[in-house]
């Protein structure tokens, strides 16, 4: 099992803030909108340095999505910022009609996704956003795993013409991705080559998948670990190649089982390479208040859950 080290834990939302600031300096067409959550989205630095390209929208997310769609007309690249809950479910029809169906070059940047929002509870812990967004034609869906990858993804999506949903979160997680690693939309990142089981993880679950890989190695199980930062378009080729070798698969994500990464992988394999599959995801349930670690434990998204799922998958080969 390959060793991954990190010098510090950082929040992925700060990776977004850092990427946005860099974009401000390198791409004059980038504009940013925020619905009264500048601090939470780490958009302060962009606002300070580029006040003329920053739009405070207030608590009016539907308007924010429409504004962003309109701002593209004339060549701007709008990045909207609010919590994942208010970036998706609250404004689904605005995104569907004014952005996705209209093919607008809007980047919907969503923080505080999933259970790791913690104490605020289920009203804010959206676990359905990936499903909603991946169903929309034309929409690209990205869920990076750490600070560096979120920063790189933020910068990369400005060069892609079309609507993108970029999902990130609040907790500090190990920042292990190399700072200079190029972010390629739709291209899986191989973290560990193995032979016994493929673990496909996204977002905050990627580090847990690495931890699970070590635990499995202690048990003599050689896991292949893939970081799928782009859920749509899915890197079919990388998944099929890996699963063709290991013959069983585990998916891991901070999202509902229905509609998430696991669903996409199951659909791919069902069509092209039927394989035993286990999902580490929230099982048709809302979250609740608690610390992020307590919640990940209670809702079955821990390192040990991935280990157990891998063993189940292997036993079904």
């Amino acid at each position: 099992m390959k060793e991954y080290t990190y010098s510090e834990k950082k929040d992925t939302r700060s990776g977004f803030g850092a990427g946005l600031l860099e974009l401000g300096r390198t791409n004059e067409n980038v504009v940013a909108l925020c619905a009264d959550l500048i601090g939470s989205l780490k958009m302060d630095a962009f606002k300070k340095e580029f006040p003329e390209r920053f739009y405070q929208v207030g608590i009016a997310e539907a308007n924010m999505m429409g504004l962003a769609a309109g701002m593209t007309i004339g060549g701007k690249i709008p990045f909207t910022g609010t919590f994942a809950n208010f970036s998706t479910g609250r404004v689904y029809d605005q995104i569907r009609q004014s952005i996705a169906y209209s093919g607008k070059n809007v980047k919907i940047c969503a923080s505080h996704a999933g259970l790791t929002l913690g104490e605020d509870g289920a009203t804010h812990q959206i676990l359905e956003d990936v499903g909603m967004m991946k169903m929309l034609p034309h929409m690209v869906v990205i869920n990076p795993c750490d600070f560096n990858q979120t920063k790189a993804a933020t910068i990369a999506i400005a060069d892609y013409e079309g609507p993108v949903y970029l999902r990130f979160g609040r907790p500090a997680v190990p920042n292990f991705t190399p700072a200079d690693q190029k972010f390629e939309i739709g291209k899986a990142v191989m973290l560990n080559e193995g032979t016994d089981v493929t673990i496909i993880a996204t977002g905050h679950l990627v580090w847990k998948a690495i931890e699970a890989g070590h635990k499995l190695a202690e048990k003599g199980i050689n896991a292949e670990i893939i970081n799928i930062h782009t859920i749509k378009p899915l890197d079919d080729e990388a998944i099929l190649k890996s699963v063709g070798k290991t013959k069983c698969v585990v998916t891991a994500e901070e999202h509902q089982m229905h509609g998430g990464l696991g669903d996409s992988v199951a659909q791919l394999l069902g069509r092209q390479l039927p394989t035993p599959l286990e999902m580490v995801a929230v099982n048709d349930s809302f979250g609740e208040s608690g610390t992020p670690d307590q919640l990940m434990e209670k809702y079955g998204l821990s390192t040990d859950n991935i280990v157990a799922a891998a063993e189940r998958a292997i036993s079904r080969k």
Partner: protein
Amino acid sequence: MKNQQLNNSIIVNPHNKSIDEMKQIAAQVRRDIVRMVHAVNSGHPGGSLGCTDYFVSLYFRVMNYKPQPFNMDGEGEDLFFLSNGHISPVWYSVLARAGFFEVSELATFRKINSRLQGHPATEEGLPGIRVASGSLGQGLSVAVGAAQTKKLNKDNNLVYVLMGDGELGEGQVWEAAMYAAHNKVDNLIATVDRNYQQIDGGTEEVLALGDLRAKFEAFGWHVLEADGNNFETLLPALEDAKKATGNGKPVMILMNTEMGFGVDFMMGSHKWHGVAPNDEQLEIALQQLAVEQASDY
């Protein structure tokens, strides 16, 4: 470099028609509307007929634009957005007759493989349309965003948007109204088609809109009123609206129209909001919409 190019070729209205000419064009557009909805036995003639004179005024006199080649970014052009997308027949007819695409294409309205979708869309690449609409309440936000980009780009042209009055029930409209005033988006001329009708009946019965002038003024807008079915007063009102831009406030025209205007049995009733005429009704409508030289598609 870009700004220099803009200055070198100032875009004006490509038609600049007289009122008499616009009356003939409006009659032809109304003929198109009833024939289009009749042909597919669906679509929305009422609001389309009511707003015909407004569309003809914008595209044949008031707005500065270039129909071909169509430029999605609209740099150096006035932009128009239709928020109440269901009145697509009037927009399609006016776009075709203003030169965005062939008039013959109107025959494909609402048919399979057409660029003329039931509600306006960009997906099929119909020139003249910059955003999809149909699900109500979204157009004002889009127009405000486009107006803000014009300001960033130092493009002095204007942005127009039309909304239905029933559509004002959507909360997003008021979010956008508050935002536009707060941010002094004064290169925007919004218009509400005040025909007092919506699908289920009168607007004041379904969900009373009340004093819209007072409401928009309270939101910080510069408000004008106009008769939308009379070129002699509508054109000066549109000029007044232009003069009101650039003064720190978004501009709103409350435009009184009669749903179904031009066809007597369709006028003033919500019943023709989304119903097509039958063969006999079409003939009667076309007789009432006589033009000196009809050029039906």
